[in-house]
């Protein structure tokens, strides 16, 4: 397989820096992406199929539609799980993208602060709305 003079390290072979007593955060992040990803395949593709095809798409959406849907605890739990998993999965993905492309420490820091702020806002706001939704609001 190997051409003369070309040597390629096995993928994911630990670097010397990695070997010197560092934490396993990146391993857990890597594992989380796979576990949450598999769950999201079901949650998100199910959501898209129901909303865009079975229920006739955005044309049918209004306040009453949302109220009817969140009257069921099943869809509340579905949406809550989907919100948390998708936002955490997306945040970790963007964290990786930021790590890959930023060159200056300050840029990397501020982009990540913006990312984490946006993520906390989205998860907190979404959770609040699902739990405190009032169909008789006016």
């Amino acid at each position: 397989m190997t051409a003369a003079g070309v040597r390629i390290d096995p993928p994911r072979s630990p670097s010397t820096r990695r070997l010197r007593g560092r934490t396993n955060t990146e391993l857990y992040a890597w594992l989380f992406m796979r576990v949450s990803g598999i769950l999201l395949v079901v949650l998100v593709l199910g959501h898209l199929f129901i909303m865009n095809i079975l229920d006739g798409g955005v044309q049918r959406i209004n306040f009453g539609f949302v109220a009817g849907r969140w009257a069921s605890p099943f869809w509340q739990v579905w949406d809550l799980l989907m919100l948390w998993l998708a936002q955490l999965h997306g945040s970790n993905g963007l964290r990786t993208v930021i790590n890959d492309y930023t060159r200056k420490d300050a840029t990397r820091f501020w982009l990540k602060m913006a990312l984490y702020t946006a993520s906390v806002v989205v998860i907190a706001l979404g959770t609040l709305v699902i739990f405190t939704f009032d169909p008789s609001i006016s």
Partner: protein
Amino acid sequence: MSTPTTARPAGTRTRLGGTLYRGREGMWSWVAHRITGVLTFFFLFAHVLDTALVRVSPESYDTVIDTYKNPFVNLMEIGLVGAVLFHALNGLRIVAVDFWSRGPRLQRQMLWAIVAVWVVVMVPGAFFMFKHSFEVLFGAG
């Protein structure tokens, strides 16, 4: 998969550089995975904010949702579904490469398999999603 091991004249590209990863399916699926992931992230941000309007008033929610009810946004929705579907299928492929013993060897075949699934799902999917817009645009009875 066999790679010539014979020496090549200096200055010509060796096949090795182009056959393993760079410029091949492995690299482009990674690029597409990133782009579709980042796109979906920004959509989710907007989607949670607009849906949160149900907590403000039915009128404000309906007003914003009404701005989505046109063929242009409908096309963007189809694009979003296509992006998410690719990201989901390719994500499963990545899981298979990481956890299945035969995954790394079959990564290229798996990519073409998920591309096939994507096409098979997207053709009828786009048809049903665009049906209403088509009737609006061309007035089919």
